[in-house]
């Protein structure tokens, strides 16, 4: 099939790629901008990939050397045998360490939560932090009631791992686009076509997402109530950005968000009007302006 790279207004292909090793995995990074300028690391959310920053990154690259990480199990980074929040943090720390100088950190959704914790772990490697709607899920009622059944489900999944679970193939890129659009109708087909082209690959029997389906399941005693108190360990300023519109994944109800952000020692908050969870995709110019203004204060 003739499949040339789709275009999207404002999306600029990365100028370079590089890889960083972390715990025997090879992680892929896309780069925009002058390597002589200060580094800025972008971390995407669950089921996204580094190309999801293809519009935002070039705008930030006017001032910074921008690197966008494919998290393990996503995009063109290696799959792992198992996934934990802590292991993802280790990957971000490994990338920060490889840069050789402190960096600006920008993360979206899960990547926002993880960049925030990475900034707590290695404060000497992070100058400032921008978290785009990465403040976790709302509290869960009776979180442990179903613990035995959820463990059994995890065990069943691990028993099936030897069969090498993969996503089902889609007959065309457009079917991937429609699948993704059914999850979040705020995102345009034009964008999702660009996003899916880079997030999937064409194989003999159709198109498959590149991401590892085994990241899907949760496990263990973790609770959303633990998110806010962690922020108290931050040693750098944080800019918290959310959109004004509620969609599939965000933002949190304001009282819950405010309760968590109250733990941040040095906080700025901005709301982008007319944007949902994917603030940087729905309103890239405005998001970039907020980020640059904050980082250059």
């Amino acid at each position, binding site marked *: 099939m003739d499949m040339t790279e789709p275009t999207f207004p404002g999306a600029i292909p990365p100028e370079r790629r590089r890889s960083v090793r972390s715990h025997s995995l090879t992680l892929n990074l896309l780069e925009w901008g002058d390597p002589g300028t200060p580094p800025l690391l972008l971390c995407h959310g669950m089921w996204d990939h580094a190309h999801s920053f293809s519009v935002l990154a070039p705008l930030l690259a006017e001032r910074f050397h921008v690197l966008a990480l494919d998290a393990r199990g996503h995009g063109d980074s290696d799959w792992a045998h198992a996934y934990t929040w*802590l292991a993802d943090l280790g990957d971000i720390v490994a990338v920060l360490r490889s840069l050789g100088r402190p960096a600006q950190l920008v993360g979206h959704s899960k990547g926002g939560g993880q960049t925030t914790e990475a900034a707590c772990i290695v404060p000497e490697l992070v100058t400032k932090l921008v978290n785009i709607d990465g403040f976790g899920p709302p509290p869960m009622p009776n979180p442990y009631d179903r613990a035995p059944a959820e463990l059994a489900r995890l*065990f069943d999944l691990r*028993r099936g791992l030897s069969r090498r679970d993969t996503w089902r193939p889609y007959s065309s890129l457009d079917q991937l686009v429609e699948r993704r659009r059914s999850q979040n109708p705020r995102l345009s087909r034009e964008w999702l076509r660009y996003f899916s082209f880079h997030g999937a690959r064409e194989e003999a029997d159709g198109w498959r997402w590149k991401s590892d389906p085994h990241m899907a399941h949760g496990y263990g005693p973790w609770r959303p109530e633990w998110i806010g108190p962690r922020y108290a360990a931050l040693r750098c300023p944080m800019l918290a950005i959310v959109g004004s519109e509620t969609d599939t994944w965000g933002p949190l109800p304001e009282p819950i968000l405010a309760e968590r952000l109250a733990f941040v020692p040095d906080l700025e908050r901005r709301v982008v009007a007319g944007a949902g969870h994917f603030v940087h995709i729905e309103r890239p110019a405005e998001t970039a302006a907020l980020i640059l203004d904050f980082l250059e204060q």
Partner: protein
Amino acid sequence: MGLELHELKGGEGHPLLLVHALFGSSADWAEAPAAWPGAVCALDMSGHGRSDWVRGGAYYPELLAADIDAALAHVGPVCLAGAGFGAYASLLVAGARHDLVRGVLLLPGTGLAGGGPQPDFATPSGRPDELAADTRGPFDPMVRTLERDVRPPEFAVAVARPIRRILLLEDGDPRPPWWEAVRALPASEHIEGDVRSALLHLRAATSIV
């Protein structure tokens, strides 16, 4: 992903599966098999003994509990005995697979407490990169993350509630909050003595007359 499951001895009656402590291996069970009339198997969990290391270093208790579950898939219905971290992991398996586990014996040992009953918010999650090491040793250095995972007593109790018999061998050392909470369940019984006598007790408690 390869796991080593060793049959230490054969025998009649339902089998016993032994689960080692943190940093341990199936070689740690010297005197135990003789106390059990049935077959005795011992597992090397991921990152330990002769089992594979987890590619990418993401160890968590439920993942190593899934290793025990994989052994159950081979051995069938069993009694479980686990030490230290292996006791906690065995509890997770016994709760999730209560139809396959007739009883579980929890023994003291390395890695029993994990990171405690609640997160330590004053100390960030640790520095995961500092655990990196490529040298081949008796265990993957990344299994040290199993010294940090949070083990709330309410979670352990929720998991343990479906278990039919829980024996807890106590040696006078301090016991973590999850252990104390499980100890208070109706199906639980705490005992003193050595591993051999504890296994005899487990056998008596789980035998069908």
